[in-house]
């Protein structure tokens, strides 16, 4: 399983798991964002187009691992519920929701999910918390939550390589490892973001985001 995860991660040919905390689920009006995550929960990919200052629409695909290997495909709507633009930072509350289908061992069911993301970010510090609720018909009903803290060892400007040292904790009651801690490093250059980490249950995390 680990070898499979590694291979899929590095080749990025798999379906990915959107880490909503990977980047904000909205960009600027007219902007498009591709996010991919490969971690101990599985693989997700999402493609989002921001069509108003507070809304983005896209497609979300997740292949779960480390439990039931459920494939979920849903359109998604990401909504900025509240933003605080501060002199030295930014706080946000987002909702992300999707409705589509889930497939597991020949069984296809309607799928619904919704998640909230609260974050605060300055050029030095990062904090986020995300609870997520998933309904996959008679396949699975689950809840998971994620928290992250991060610090930038140096303050980078727009044209510099940004580096963040982060620590993520996932609580996923439906998975074999209920609580998983992942230290990670984030690199950020203009519209390209890459995260690499290694979880307490010995999975490599590779996430990336491109905005265009």
């Amino acid at each position, binding site marked *: 399983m680990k070898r499979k995860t590694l291979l899929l991660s590095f080749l990025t040919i798999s379906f990915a798991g959107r880490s909503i905390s990977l*980047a*904000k689920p*909205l*960009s*600027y*009006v*007219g*902007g498009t964002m591709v996010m991919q995550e490969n971690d101990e929960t599985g693989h997700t990919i999402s493609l989002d187009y921001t069509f108003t*200052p507070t809304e983005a629409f896209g497609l979300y695909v997740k292949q779960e691992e480390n439990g039931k290997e459920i494939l979920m495909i849903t359109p998604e709507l990401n909504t*900025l519920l509240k*933003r*605080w*633009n*501060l*002199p030295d*930072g*930014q706080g946000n509350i987002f909702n992300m929701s999707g409705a589509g289908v889930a497939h597991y061992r020949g069984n296809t069911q309607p799928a619904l999910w919704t998640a909230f993301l609260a974050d605060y*970010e*300055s*050029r030095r510090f990062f904090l986020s918390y995300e609870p997520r609720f998933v309904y996959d018909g008679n396949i699975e009903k689950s809840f998971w939550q994620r928290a992250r803290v991060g610090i930038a060892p140096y*303050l980078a*400007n*727009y044209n510099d390589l*940004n580096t963040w040292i982060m620590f993520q904790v996932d609580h996923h009651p439906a998975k074999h490892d209920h609580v998983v801690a992942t230290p990670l490093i984030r690199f*950020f*250059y*203009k*519209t390209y*973001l890459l995260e690499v980490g290694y979880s307490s249950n010995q999975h490599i995390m590779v996430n990336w985001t491109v*905005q265009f």
Partner: protein
Amino acid sequence: MRYYITIVINLVLSAVASADTIHAKVNGMVCGFCATGIEKTFKAQPQVKTVNVDLEMKLVTVAMKDGQTIDDARLKKLIGNAGYSVVSIERSK
């Protein structure tokens, strides 16, 4: 202090170019994605010659093409659409 030095430099440069230059102090800009959103938003405006985002100074500098301008309301809307808040606007020739 660096904010004012940046303003002065931009004023001098814009005077040489003899075109409108807008300096907007903006809250909420913390990362490259923020800067890209603002940059792409302004580059899509036909009146705009160049745009520069300085995260450290929290400053967006927009140089206009000769004889062109963007009024304050429009400027605030464009930056608002990118997700950020304008605190103050200064203009120079």
